[in-house]
């Protein structure tokens, strides 16, 4: 039998590998198991490669509009294969980087499919069986299948695309993000089912690359978790770009033809219509990977496909922990990383607090970008807050005009009574890089006063954050 690990992490996605590295830093003998790729979906099939694709789309867009900037670019075109190759290259490079980081921190990598046989009891460590996998080749230096033991076992198995019965992805005509990430050629037309971050990013990418795109959303609003005002502005921009958007609409049937799929879509008015497209992307959310881990036998509590934890990563079974997507929403890489660190620091006995899920920012990298943190205006009112709302448009910001990006809005929501920063919502160029200012302010429990007293550099887009705060209190300068 091999040595006993202090901590064994199942899943090497952004949650799992960060957890393992932090555990090793804390002096734990640590291993991480994965069956497919270091860095998980995020790094290989999610966050990172889509950003690479969207960057290509963005530059393509600028080249098409070169004359706006006094430049000329003729016969602008693209090579789909080269775009995909670049995206895969970015993933590959980071994937290798994760391997290096794990090695540097002396974290053992174990390759295969893990099942938890038992958890630690008294002096007896928990047992994990790892079976060989054919999914992907093991990275160099990884340990193979076998039986491993560990005092603490952390599940970080992530999530996978949800499939709607009757519209199951077939990898050819009905895609998930996997296939959408590596198109052999740009489809001429595309139907996107679901208007969350994943659906909208692909819609934005493929539209920029010239496809006829239709987005179908079940709820009355696209980007359903975002503030209604921001989502409304996004919709107008998308429609101006030529994306067709159907909200309150449901795909009831999909028929596959030789060169196209035909979807029957039922609107909120009960009327049906049929739309044909070369490809359909199913982006209707993700579900936790809780199967084949041995959870039923151990009596681990789950809820709607995710593992129930106490906020510090502990499941109802002592010695077994869960973090990231598999531990419930919001299913975001940065939430997983943070949860993993809290989990191992708790095991170490450090002073930890459950993460405040109300302070997790969300970013969507479509064009224009969208970013937010905290409560939407509607949610804040629903929770009984008297709100003060500040707005500042990109059109009033010097830097935004200079960039040629005069469309966008930064919206700030305060509790009128205490000055608590309840939420911030943004749409426009580079807002995904601006949101952290609000996140820091929120985490430090700043009120409007500290934000007003903060000096923002000029000329930057960040000045809009300042102005938006000032606007909430009737002190805005540039509108």
């Amino acid at each position, binding site marked *: 039998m091999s040595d006993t690990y202090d901590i064994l992490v199942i899943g090497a996605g952004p949650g799992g590998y960060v957890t393992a590295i932090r555990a090793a830093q804390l*002096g734990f003998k640590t291993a991480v198991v994965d069956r497919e790729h270091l860095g998980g979906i995020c790094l290989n099939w999610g966050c990172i490669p889509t950003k690479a694709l969207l960057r290509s789309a963005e530059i393509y867009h600028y080249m098409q509009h070169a004359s706006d900037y006094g430049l000329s670019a003729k016969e602008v075109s693209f090579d789909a294969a080269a775009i995909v190759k670049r995206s895969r290259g970015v993933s590959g490079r980071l994937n290798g980087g994760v391997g290096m980081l794990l090695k540097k921190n002396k974290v053992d990598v174990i390759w295969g499919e893990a099942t938890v046989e038992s958890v630690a009891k008294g002096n007896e460590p928990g047992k994990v069986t790892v079976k060989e996998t054919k999914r992907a080749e093991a990275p160099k230096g990884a340990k193979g299948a076998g039986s491993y033991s560990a005092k603490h076992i952390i599940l970080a198995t992530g999530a996978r695309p949800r499939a709607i019965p009757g519209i199951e992805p077939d990898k050819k005509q009905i895609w998930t993000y996997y296939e959408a990430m590596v198109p052999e050629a740009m489809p001429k037309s595309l139907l996107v089912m679901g208007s969350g971050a994943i659906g909208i990013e692909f819609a934005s990418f493929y539209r920029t690359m010239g496809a006829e795109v239709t987005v179908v959303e079940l709820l009355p609003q696209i980007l359903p978790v975002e503030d209604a005002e921001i989502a409304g502005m996004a919709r107008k921009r998308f429609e101006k770009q030529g994306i067709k958007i159907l909200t309150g609409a449901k795909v009831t049937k999909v028929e596959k033809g030789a060169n196209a799929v035909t979807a029957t879509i039922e609107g909120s008015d009960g009327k049906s219509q049929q739309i044909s497209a070369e490809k359909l992307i199913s982006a209707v959310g993700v579900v936790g990977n809780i199967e084949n881990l041995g959870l039923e036998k151990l009596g681990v509590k789950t809820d709607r496909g995710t593992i129930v934890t106490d906020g510090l990563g502990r499941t109802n079974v002592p010695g077994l922990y869960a973090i990231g997507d598999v531990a419930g929403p919001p299913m975001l890489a940065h939430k997983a990383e943070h949860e993993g660190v809290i989990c191992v620091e708790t*095991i*170490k*006995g*450090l*002073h930890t*607090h459950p993460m405040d899920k109300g302070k997790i920012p969300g970013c969507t990298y479509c064009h224009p970008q969208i970013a937010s943190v905290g409560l939407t205006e509607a949610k804040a009112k629903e929770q009984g807050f008297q709100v003060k709302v500040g707005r500042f448009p990109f059109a009033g910001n010097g830097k935004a005009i200079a960039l040629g990006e005069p469309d966008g809005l930064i919206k700030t929501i305060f509790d009128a*009574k*205490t*000055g*608590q920063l309840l939420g911030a919502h943004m749409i426009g160029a580079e807002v995904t890089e601006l949101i952290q200012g609000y996140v820091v302010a929120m985490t*430090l*429990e*700043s*009120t409007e*006063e*500290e934000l007003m007293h903060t000096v923002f550099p000029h000329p930057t887009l960040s000045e809009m954050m300042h102005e938006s705060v000032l606007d909430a209190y009737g002190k805005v300068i540039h509108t």
Partner: protein
Amino acid sequence: MPINVLMPALSPTMEKGNLAKWLKKEGDAIKSGDVLAEIETDKATMEVEAIDEGVLAKIVVPEGTADVPVNDLIAIIAGEGEDVSAAAAGGGAAPKAEAKPAAEAPKSDAGQNTTPGDGHMSYARVNEAPDAAKPAAGGGQAAAPASSGGRVFASPLARRIAKQEGVDLAAVQGSGPHGRIIARDVQEAKASGATKAAPAPAHQAAETPKAAAPAPKAAPAGGAPAGLSLDQVRGFYQKDAYEEVPLDGMRKTIAKRLTEAMQVAPHFYLTVDCELDALMKLRETLNGSAGKDRDGKPLFKLSVNDFVIKAMGLALTRVPAANAVWAEDRILRFKHAEVGVAVAIDGGLFTPVIRRADEKTLSAISNEMKDFAARARAKKLKPEEYQGGVTSVSNLGMFGIKHFTAVINPPQSSILAVGAGEKRVVVKDGQPTVAQVMTCTLSCDHRVLDGALGAELVSAFKGLIENPMGMLV
């Protein structure tokens, strides 16, 4: 302007108290520092002291009134040159409204340590002097460490909510990074009502131990005040020679409280040998006479330790000066004996407290202890069951330990370390003879017990153990 005297909070958790006695009559001239009244809670009796001058215009709450809510108007003082009868008539009209300007006044940094309503609250002797702006008054000496320590670290939002809700930040324990007070701490403090009034740390010692040990904010994560650092300790050993065990809450509490006890309470030790033969005989007789319950099990089975608990309880009431604990600037003396009993459990210990051990019968003590011990091992004790106590009994006799000394468990003032009862040769009437002897060592807090007083307590205890019939009557 007439000055309202409000019911003070003598501890952070106090919600009401009894107005035991007025020491001034209506019409009496009041000088700063005069004791106006005595307030009683279930834990202690405290004096209410004046810091302003004037004439006691009206007593609103007569003496002997029980359960007066904190912050209720109890009397009105007419200021110098004011019409006493007018003050009496009108002074109490709007105590709450008046509290506001008083709270707004201190704009200085020190203001954050005070509470809205301080203008009134400062009548309690137990309060710190509310702010430098007031003329220094006699009542200021009991300034709280937490309040006098200067800057309070709190988030902007926490500060604002505290100001709006009248929560005293100095009394709030921060749970943020480096003990910073965050909004949630203030909301929780407000919900628990703990900090509505200025805290009276001088009297926290009279509260349960939990409240008595307001964790020094600077204490490192491990809970134990600075010793060798982790890296220093690691440096002494080979890296593979040890395993690192994280501290659980109990270990942190033990480390913190007992380190504090050794550093704060000056310990001295009194050792005595007690002969057990008579006690063993009595125990056998009593156990033999125990009635049976329905299942045929005896109704009680007394252990030697049950006798020790009872003897300590009785001894404390026989030496009342020793039945007391230290409380910063005074001593709290108890009517009945509260005897804690150390129960070792996996990874630590609990000391559930037998209340009124002086009054309870041996069988009652015995059965209560069995229940405590079982629930202590299951970690099912309620805080109120292991907080308080004047002394404790720690018995390592079952391990064959002959003699040891124990660390006092704050806020208690003594602890009895009980060794094994064993046959020893003793000299009686000039002749060697064999007797069963148990060595006991009392650790005493010298702030409360002097040598002679401690010896008196030990001697009373020994007398009861050696003549155990005395415990039955």
